[in-house]
């Protein structure tokens, strides 16, 4: 059964309720937001619309899809809701009362959910009608809803299984990652996650590490985000953490590792002292002006931060392969390795013990930990990666009873994860043995294609992959910076090879995309700096020209070229995507031409493509907006290095074309891009060269005046003004441009290169690049 509600009722206008309403609004689904009165709900929607930091809406326009209402309007408004989301504060009596109200007015058959992080779903629904119970489930969203991938779905005893499936599919379509848990305390991710945090706290004290050191160990080296443990605790709020800890401890009497769930004294003391983390300004860390202080657990006072200096962590941090990094943390007998071994064994055992209790299988638990806590590998997968025998030894050493699943795997001599004959991922699930993860028709399983040997060619920067159906994929995949996939000659080599393959008839369409954290975060700055330092200016210009030429080649090719940008798509990355004829973008797209931050201008076709997109815009009477307006609109974006907050935002800002498609579900983008490429094959017509009407000198001088005024009033720094003048020259079409004679693509590209070459030799640009490489932040000089 497919479930696509026309209207969702969200009861409770708090931060979670508005976040859930926004999730549906972003998917194009209308909702009614019920609060105690409509005015309060309207205020919450207004706040949702105006949020600038981590906005929940992908476009302010989506706010229109949410209608404010009062709970007194149930009789007229609730029957229109196909799904009703109860998301009031987590007090059992309150939730029961609210559900009774919903039960009285809902349309039979409508799906009702309760959102909770810890209450029993069965207890909440206990007094409701049978129809409601059959159409009921629990959800556990993470805050902030838009940015946290995981949603745990918890059926109650009466929930119809097909309804659970359909609801999960709906949330997946909205871009969420869904796991099905059971009605046990703290469900899956928090149950295991809280144990892991408490274990880190115990081990920190045992091994005499500082909080900074413990965070350095339990961050990226252990395949966990940089927030690691204590920083994460401060973000979550120590009171929330303590509350959840108590929930686990009190309600899990049969937990074999229960003693370790006892709320630690330090945590209790901190909560009593109102040191709750970020929300009260002090937790394990405290911000003091620009400085960050660390709690000294002995004196209960704050001290200056001490930068951790742990050799094992430093060495492991240099390894880009996650499993190698993990192994490097565990091999040895120093206290960091001992810490890592004890932690991996304890958390792995705890997670393995939960299989069958909190979820049906081990993969669900790992998935929840990856999507809920941002881990690269789940705790069970870590055990598998390090070797079952080895970890079993560590578990024995810690005197933790061996999990049955581990014993069974050892007895059978199998790993916990593997691949089947078709190279699908399998996981160990006795008595069936290894079970294959079923194909998801919306997702292109890229790792599996690689296992099947579908790579056509590869180098350290990118790969070409045969996607089947005559489609070749250019996969930006940096061996050194896999999270950012910078664009360099290696990427362009593969791109050129892809076009050659198609020219020779080996393929018939090209897709550009990957499934990394980010599509491509820009050019390889280091390479540019090295060339500049070596005086190899010709090589720099050739690199820019190559990106430009390949962009034009993709744009005007007589076969489909489709890009699938997602995540960070910056500078040369955006230019790579704009060098395709169509883009299928993930909703979470942070795109922008940000070259100004490193003292440069886009010179890989970015200025050209933005000008083309902008000048294709028409006013209500179908007329062009005028060359100056178009030039200024693009100037606004590249002068400030504007980065979109979503794909919808990028489209509104003219960094995506109006016909480009947006897919909410990030992991489905590549498949959608391939489908779009195949679609285009039918009756394909190449895009002809599109010259752009640009204002020429008059417009250039007008932008120049503005730049000078900004400089005089100190609104931009001197080098900022230099860069802006170069941008103005490119975007106005240069001194010879004339709005009555549109400027050719080649001429605009030439202006891009001229500007780029002028700036790349500027010492102040070098300062900007050096600062960016060192600090990751732009320099305003």
């Amino acid at each position: 059964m497919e479930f696509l509600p026309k209207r969702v009722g969200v009861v409770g206008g708090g931060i979670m309720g508005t976040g859930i309403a926004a999730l549906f609004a972003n998917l194009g689904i209308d909702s009614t937001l019920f609060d105690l009165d409509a005015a309060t709900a309207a205020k919450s929607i207004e706040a949702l619309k105006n949020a600038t930091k981590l906005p929940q809406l992908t476009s302010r326009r989506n706010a229109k899809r949410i209608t404010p209402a009062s709970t007194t309007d149930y009789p007229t408004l609730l029957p229109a809701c196909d799904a009703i989301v109860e998301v009031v504060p987590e007090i059992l009596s309150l939730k029961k009362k609210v559900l009774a109200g919903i039960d009285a007015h809902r349309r039979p058959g409508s799906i009702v959910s309760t959102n909770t992080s810890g209450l029993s779903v069965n207890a909440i629904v206990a007094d409701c009608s049978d129809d409601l119970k059959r159409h009921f489930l629990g959800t556990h969203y993470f805050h902030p809803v838009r940015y946290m991938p995981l949603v745990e779905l918890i059926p109650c005893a009466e929930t119809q299984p097909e309804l659970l499936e359909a609801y999960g599919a709906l949330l997946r379509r909205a871009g969420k990652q869904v796991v099905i848990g059971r009605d046990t305390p703290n469900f899956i991710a928090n149950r295991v996650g809280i144990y892991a945090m408490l274990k880190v706290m115990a081990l920190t004290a045992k091994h005499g590490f500082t909080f900074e050191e413990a965070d350095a160990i339990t961050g990226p080296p252990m395949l966990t985000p940089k927030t690691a443990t204590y920083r994460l605790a401060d973000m979550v709020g120590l009171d929330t953490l303590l509350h959840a800890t108590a929930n686990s401890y009190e309600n899990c009497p049969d937990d074999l590792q229960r003693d370790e769930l006892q709320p630690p004294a330090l945590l209790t003391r901190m909560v009593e002292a109102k040191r709750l983390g970020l929300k009260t300004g002090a937790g394990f860390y405290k911000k003091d002006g620009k400085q960050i202080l660390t709690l000294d657990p002995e004196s209960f006072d704050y001290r200056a931060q001490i930068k951790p200096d742990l050799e094992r962590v430093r060495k492991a941090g240099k390894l880009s392969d996650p499993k190698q990094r993990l192994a490097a943390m565990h091999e040895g007998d120093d206290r960091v390795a001992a810490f890592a071994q004890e932690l991996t064994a304890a958390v792995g055992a705890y997670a393995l013990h939960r299989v069958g209790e909190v979820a049906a299988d081990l993969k669900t638990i790992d998935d929840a930990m990856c999507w809920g806590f941002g881990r690269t590998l789940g705790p069970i997968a870590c055990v598998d990666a390090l070797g079952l025998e080895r970890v079993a030894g560590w578990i024995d050493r810690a005197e933790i009873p061996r999990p049955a699943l581990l014993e069974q795997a050892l007895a059978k001599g199998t790993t916990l994860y593997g691949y089947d004959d078709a190279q699908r991922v399998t996981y160990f699930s006795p008595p069936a043995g290894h079970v294959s993860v079923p194909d998801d028709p919306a997702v292109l399983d890229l790792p599996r294609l690689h296992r099947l040997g579908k790579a056509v060619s590869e180098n350290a920067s990118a790969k070409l992959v045969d996607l089947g159906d005559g489609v070749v994929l250019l996969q930006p995949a940096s061996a050194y910076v896999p999270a950012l996939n910078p664009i360099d000659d290696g990427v362009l080599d593969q791109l050129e090879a892809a076009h050659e393959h198609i020219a020779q008839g080996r393929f018939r369409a090209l897709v550009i995309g990957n499934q990394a954290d980010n599509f491509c975060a820009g050019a390889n700055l280091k390479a540019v700096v090295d060339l500049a330092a070596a005086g190899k200016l010709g090589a720099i210009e050739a690199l820019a020209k190559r990106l430009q030429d390949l962009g034009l080649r993709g744009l005007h090719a007589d076969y489909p070229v489709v890009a699938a940008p997602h995540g960070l798509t910056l500078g040369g990355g955006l230019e790579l995507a704009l060098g395709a004829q169509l883009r299928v973008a993930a909703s979470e797209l942070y795109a922008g031409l940000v070259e100004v931050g490193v003292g440069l201008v886009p010179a890989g076709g970015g200025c050209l493509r933005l000008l083309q997109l902008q000048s294709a815009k028409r006013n209500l009477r179908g007329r062009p907006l005028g060359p100056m307006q178009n030039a200024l609109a693009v100037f606004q974006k590249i002068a400030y290095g504007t980065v979109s907050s979503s794909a919808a935002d990028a489209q509104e800002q003219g960094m995506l074309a109006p016909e480009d498609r947006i897919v909410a579900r990030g992991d489905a983008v590549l498949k959608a891009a391939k489908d779009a490429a195949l679609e285009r094959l039918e009756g394909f017509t190449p895009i002809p060269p599109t010259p752009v009407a640009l204002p020429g000198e008059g417009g250039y001088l007008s932008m120049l005046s503005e730049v000078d005024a900004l400089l005089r009033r100190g609104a931009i720094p001197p080098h900022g003004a230099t860069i802006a003048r170069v941008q103005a020259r490119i975007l106005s079409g240069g001194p010879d441009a004339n709005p009555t004679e549109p400027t050719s693509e080649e001429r605009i590209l030439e202006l891009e290169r001229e500007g780029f070459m002028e700036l790349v030799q500027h010492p102040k640009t070098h300062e900007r690049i050096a600062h960016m490489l060192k600090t990751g932040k732009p320099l305003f000089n």
Partner: protein
Amino acid sequence: MQVREIAIVDACRSPIAKSKKGALNALTPLELSAQVVNALMERNPKVPKDRFEMVVAGTAYPEAEQGLNVARLIGLKTGFPVSVAGVTVNQFCASSQQAVMILHDAMALGKGDAGLAVGLEHMARVPQGGFNPSLDRELHERNVYIGMGDTAEVLATELKISRDDQEAFAMRSHEKALQAWSEGAFAKEVVPIALPGGGTCAQDEFPRAPDAAKLRSLKPAFRTDGTVTAGTSSPLSVGVAAVLLMPVEVAQELGVTPRATILSTAVAGVDYERMGLGPVPASEKALARAGLTLDDIDVIELNEAFAAQALAVIQKGGWEAHVDKINPLGGALALGHPLGMSGARIIGTALTALERGGGKHALVTMCVGGGQGATTILKRWGA
């Protein structure tokens, strides 16, 4: 040909709103103009619309929503017969004062029996500088396109006008405007504007109790080493003013009592880098044409583009002895300066001030971007 004496029958205006999130942003400049003109015509029922020869509208940026010959659109939107022509004029900030001058001159020579001048500027919808600025290289190199704030800095530097003096002047402007509002001085001048979706805008949005410390804390707005700040510059704003004119003989025929007559008008040019001084030569000319001196003037409406600019006019014009006559109800620093509106606005405000104070003559003057001045001298009816 006999030259006819021209009267101002009436004038009114919208409140002046902020261009940033101001109450009038929901309206287009045309809709706003229509409301102001309708209010003016409704309260002058004896003036028949078919006696008009033209509606003249002034706006500093006659494009987009202020384009398409907006004067014609205003006439048609407010029920003037199709036979009444519409003319949009541009002289930057003096645009609507120029509209009054054109109607004055035309009717004085017998062309038309009634005239409507409208000044409009919606600085939120049509930005200063317009949407499609394009410059000439030679003039650019001669600095003809110098920014207005930069001209104020030039005057402040050359005439040694201190930041303290500028701030004192700005604060005084706010005090006078607040005082005028509290006394109901603008009851006749300002007409309430109905907003879409209900509600009205009935009050100027800018005047506020001066805060010397806050003013002192502002950063220079135009150059880092400058003295002119946002607090001593007229703010970006939105508003419409309208003036109803008629030859005195027609007014008598219709039984309409004028509020003032126009004694003389003048425009003049000055160095564009010192554009703020424009009122000095323009006023000298206008006074000479009226056969008056500043001693004969009871009210001076001197548009306050910048405090430094107004103080420069006072200094260079030798107006120090007449400072008390200047802007008795507050000036553009406090009320706002919707560019094309201001010419008609200060004529209306001069009428208010003359009638309140019982004075006889008012001198209405303003500086203009590109280096110009425009002045009109009024005589209160019956004085």
